[in-house]
């Protein structure tokens, strides 16, 4: 019994000494360091709290955070929407009557995107969309803390066209199609006549 009591006191003291050591070490704080900095694991003693949001840990460059789309570089190929496992990318496209222009990496743009929505509330940050994009215009930024007051604010809209512009482009496309149809019909007629 006495042995047990002594053992209790001894182990209690062990614990108390340990906490006292930590209490003493609390005069210093660990530096806010990224995981890839040298000596990251060297900091053993001291306060571990990172006073977010006053202090922030540096984030790795290739982490998976909020998505961003550089819409000027998008060729509206719809690959990202197709690969997305949770179908959170919603793209509409309108064919252009002519080549619109070129992206910064030289791909030719032939489609307008009146709608390019990514619902970040559904996104599971798998990053597949960023790997399939042929022009690398859909990317993950370093932004990770995003809070909104309404869930609909999490539906990011990247399209830069106004509705009027979209309507006009549609009209132009229809006209072009109609012209082509007419030309086709005329050509057919001519072929019949030639026979």
């Amino acid at each position, binding site marked *: 019994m006495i042995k047990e009591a002594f053992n209790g006191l001894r182990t209690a003291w062990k614990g108390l000494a340990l*906490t006292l050591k930590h209490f003493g070490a609390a005069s210093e704080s660990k530096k806010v360091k990224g995981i890839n900095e040298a000596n990251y694991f060297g900091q053993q003693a001291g306060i571990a709290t990172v006073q977010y949001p006053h202090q922030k840990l540096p984030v790795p460059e290739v982490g998976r955070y909020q998505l961003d789309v550089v819409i000027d570089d998008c060729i509206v190929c719809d690959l990202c929407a197709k690969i997305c496992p949770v179908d959170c990318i919603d793209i509409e496209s309108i064919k252009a009557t002519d080549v619109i222009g070129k992206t910064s990496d030289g791909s030719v743009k032939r489609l307008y995107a009146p709608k390019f929505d990514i619902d970040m509330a559904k996104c599971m940050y798998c990053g597949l969309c960023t790997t399939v994009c042929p022009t690398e215009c859909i990317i993950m930024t370093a932004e990770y803390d995003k809070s909104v007051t309404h869930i609909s604010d999490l539906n990011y809209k990247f399209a830069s066209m106004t509705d009027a512009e979209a309507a006009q482009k549609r009209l132009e496309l229809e006209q072009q199609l109609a012209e082509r149809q007419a030309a086709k019909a005329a050509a057919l007629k001519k072929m019949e006549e030639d026979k």
Partner: protein
Amino acid sequence: MNFYLIYFLVAIAIFGFIATFSLVSVYAERKISAFIQDRLGPMEVGKYGWLQTAADILKLIQKEYIVPALADKVLFTIAPVIIFVAVYLGFVALPWAPSLVPASMNIGVFYVFAIISVEAVGILMAGWGSNNKYSLLGAVRSVAQMVSYEIPIGFVIISAVMISQSLDLQVINYNQGILATQEIKFLGFLNVNHIGGVLAWNVFKAPHLLVAYVIYFIASLAECNRAPFDLPEAESELIGGFHTEYTGLRFAFIFLAEYAMMFLVAMLGVTLFLGGWNTPLPNIGSLHLADYTTGTFWGIFWVMAKCLLVVAAQMWIRWTLPRLRVDQLMTLCWKVLTPLAFACLVVSGLWRLILLSA
């Protein structure tokens, strides 16, 4: 008339002290726990979060009183009052300085010890009145614990009283320093009436009281339901035990009582064993340190310093040791502390008979 005015002033002063102490010590506890766990603790309200507890109490005051529909309304309402008043009244008999004691009583020790036990009644009322299984379990545990631990506490207090030969806390205080009226001997043979200081404290007058103090300290943790003996509250099992159902100011009073109790048991222990308001500095030759550091101001200073150290140790222990199981709690009390306390009592008696009368 003036007579009553002083009574009221004393009562208000004690209440003010308890409230301030609670605010400061809750802050201190949160910081100590944070530092022990390598955290920072409250940092946002005021510089280093020093206004945090003031903000907390403001929040508590504004909260709604909720009485559960099936609770026993009367018991539920008066329980916090009884819990708080029990502890509050305990402060009356405790001396702060050579001539500063709210109420001088010739049975002070007995009074404090008795009034502390009343808290158990309040806790039982709170648990029973809440009509909630967690509260009731907490209350039952609390009462079992407090009643059991009163036995070792009682014995060690008696062994200190035997050495001091008085139940008056002020007399006990006087006889642990240079103002002593009896003959005091360091370790039972060296007369230290004129040296004073730490040598004249009860724990050094009779070294077995050192063991007695350790027993007292452990048991007093159980008396104020602090970890590792916080089974009555046990947040992780009982959601808070007997005070689960309390809100707002009622909860604040229970909380206040808990912190006041910490100080009360610390102060009683300091008075009985660690010299109370006596200075730890002895007179050495022509350097009359003890004479310089005795007085009303110094008395308050020493008693506060000692008590705060003890309270800090209570917090330190709370954030280190895990909670005991119910059976371990009872084993510790009945099989370890009680026999040891008995032994202290016997040694005290022999000490008195053989060493001091010889």
